[in-house]
């Protein structure tokens, strides 16, 4: 349904936008020459024409209206019908996937700077199937909360260590999967909010650099932007890129939750001349990145590659992966110990992660979901006694403050979000990211669709979203009885399938902690 909606809305709305003024003109003539009574029709039509012109050309805050005009009002109309009608007509508030309306509405409200207080009760399930936060009986007074700080690269005492003062970053989305307006709005928003943005594996970060935010340059398996012809790393180009002022951190992407074991995919519909140049690929053909880095064929070579990137770039270097086999992770960690080389961070992407395009089987059936993976990785790092050697990041539908705090409690030092920020940009989850037809102009390169995405306005929404989250983190932190986000621990989380009494999880009782966390990883 989603697909036909796109094609139809576009054609139908174009027809409507052209015919409204024409019919208005005809009605005026008929009123003039046939009977004045017809002006009872002309007048509303004139008003409609005016409203439509305003939607199309006068306003900037509603991308859908700017792109499609009055017909897109249908969406607002249906929304205004409220849940009581939608439940019967379409889908309930908690039914849509991947993000239901309740989850999305929270991001929209935060992005628009609207208070997110709700009424009557939660709409979510309480069947013990979800992770919940465990508050303390003794909340910490607000004045005693400590600011968040996390320095990536401090373990190696890097001159160019990079410090975060918010536990949230914009996750990898390449220019290519996103259009230039979306990239610039995110980058500008990141700058306003004071958080870094990951460039994604789209090659040289042309549009990212325009807005002056801090960047995490991602090197995908195809190494767009820093590759030799044969797909191996071009040290010189990496060094040059790392010398860019805005580039603060390098991320080696080993795999991604939405398609672990598979390389990036950019459908030919979305390859413009410019993208072909930035990535160094031909036009008119799907671009499929290799599933692995040519340099990384086992644990030892992967670690050696990490060292090489660290040496060439001089910057903090992290790796991103979706957890697959536990044993392979352990082997990788042991190889790090053997070579005494550690990435500056390890970013765990949950299997529920998003993507611009991926084969369905990979999206649906591959990889470990984040909240299962995170405690395991944290525990393995502790098992190997190298937890202090690197930071741990997490991503996977962490779009609400509660979910982010759960991840921070289960071992993450900071979290990444991709789709949370897309929603802040006005994503309506039309599920067409691969087709170049995004109706709100985010994952498309077509100028007539990107038109609706007002960079400044949406950048502000990105910043609003971050600020609203910050406010919620603070409130929650106090309730959780901790002074800083870094103090959160598994004792703050109720995990599904286990009663709280089963476990005593405290930082002091590290051994017990590990045993229990392993138990989580083994649950069916």
């Amino acid at each position, binding site marked *: 349904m989603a697909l036909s909606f796109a094609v139809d809305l576009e054609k139908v709305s174009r027809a409507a936008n052209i015919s409204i003024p024409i019919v208005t003109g005809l009605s*005026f003539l008929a*009123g*003039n020459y046939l*009977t*004045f*009574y017809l*002006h*009872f029709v*002309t*007048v*509303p039509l*004139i*008003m409609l024409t005016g*409203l439509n012109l*305003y*939607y199309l050309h006068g*306003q900037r805050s*509603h991308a859908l*209206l700017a792109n499609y005009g009055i017909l897109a*009002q249908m969406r*607002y*109309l249906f*929304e*205004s*019908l*409220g*849940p009581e009608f939608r439940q019967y007509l379409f889908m309930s508030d908690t039914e849509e996937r991947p993000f239901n309306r309740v989850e999305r*509405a929270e991001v*929209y*409200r935060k992005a*628009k700077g*609207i*208070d*997110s*207080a*709700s*009424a009557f009760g939660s709409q979510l399930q309480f069947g013990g199937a979800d992770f919940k936060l465990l508050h303390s009986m003794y909340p910490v007074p607000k004045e005693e909360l400590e600011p968040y700080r996390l320095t990536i690269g401090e373990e190696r005492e890097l001159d160019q260590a990079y410090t975060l003062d918010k536990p949230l970053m914009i996750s990898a989305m390449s220019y290519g999967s996103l259009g230039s307006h979306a990239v610039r709005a995110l980058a500008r928003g990141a700058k306003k909010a004071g958080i870094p943005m990951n460039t994604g594996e789209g090659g040289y970060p042309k549009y990212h650099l325009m807005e002056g935010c801090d960047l995490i340059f991602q090197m995908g398996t195809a190494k767009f932007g820093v590759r030799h012809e044969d797909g191996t790393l071009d040290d010189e180009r990496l060094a040059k890129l790392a010398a860019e002022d805005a580039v603060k951190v390098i991320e080696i992407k080993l795999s991604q939750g939405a398609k672990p074991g598979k390389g990036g995919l950019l459908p030919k519909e979305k390859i413009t001349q410019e993208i072909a140049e930035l990535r160094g690929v031909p036009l008119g053909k799907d671009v499929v990145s290799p599933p692995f880095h040519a340099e990384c064929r086992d644990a030892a070579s992967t670690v050696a590659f990490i060292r090489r990137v660290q040496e060439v770039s001089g910057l903090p270097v992290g790796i991103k992966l979706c957890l697959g086999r536990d044993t392979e992770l352990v082997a990788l960690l042991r190889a790090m110990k053997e070579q005494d080389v550690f990435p500056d961070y390890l970013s765990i992407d949950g299997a529920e992660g998003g993507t611009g395009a991926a084969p369905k089987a990979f999206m649906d059936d591959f990889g470990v979901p984040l909240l299962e993976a995170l405690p395991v990785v944290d525990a393995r790092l502790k098992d190997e006694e190298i937890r202090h050697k690197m930071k741990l990041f997490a991503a996977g539908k962490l779009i609400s403050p509660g979910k982010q705090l759960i991840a921070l409690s289960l071992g993450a030092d900071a979290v990444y979000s991709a789709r949370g920020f897309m929603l802040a940009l006005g994503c309506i989850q039309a599920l067409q990211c691969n087709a170049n037809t995004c109706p709100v102009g985010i994952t498309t390169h077509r100028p007539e669709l990107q038109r609706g995405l007002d960079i400044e306005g949406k950048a502000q929404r990105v910043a609003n979203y971050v600020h609203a989250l910050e406010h919620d983190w603070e409130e929650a932190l106090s309730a959780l009885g901790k002074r800083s986000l870094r103090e959160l621990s598994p004792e703050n989380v109720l995990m599904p399938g286990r009663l709280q009494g089963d476990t005593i999880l405290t930082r002091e009782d590290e051994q017990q902690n590990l045993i229990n966390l392993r138990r989580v990883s083994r649950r069916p």
Partner: protein
Amino acid sequence: MGSADPATPKHGPPPLWLWGPRLIAAGVMAFVAYLKLTDNPADIAIFTQLGMEPHGRYLVGAIEGFCALVLLSPYAPVGAVMTSGVMLGAIIAHATKLGLIVNGDGGKHVGLLALVFLSSLLLAFFRRRELPLIGDTL
């Protein structure tokens, strides 16, 4: 987005001076409705010229009266949009059929029209966010 949202911020109270245009528009609409519905000769002349006598005159008179009521009700912004619609119709009439001076009134009729049009536009503009369906997008 938003209209179904119970947390959409409620617009503050409209500024007090908006009562000015609101009362002007409502008063004039009530007055001209009364004239039309009571067979005022000047209106009969106008509607004869428009080819709408007498039904058109009664229809417009009824609409104008209704506008006056809505303007004074809590739905004033809707009334303001309706009133500006009626005025738009009147502008079309003057522009295409009647001219600026009707029945030798030296332009008084058109002046009144402009006054009401302006008042209703002001009211509609400053309270546009309260309009049903489209308010959230304006």
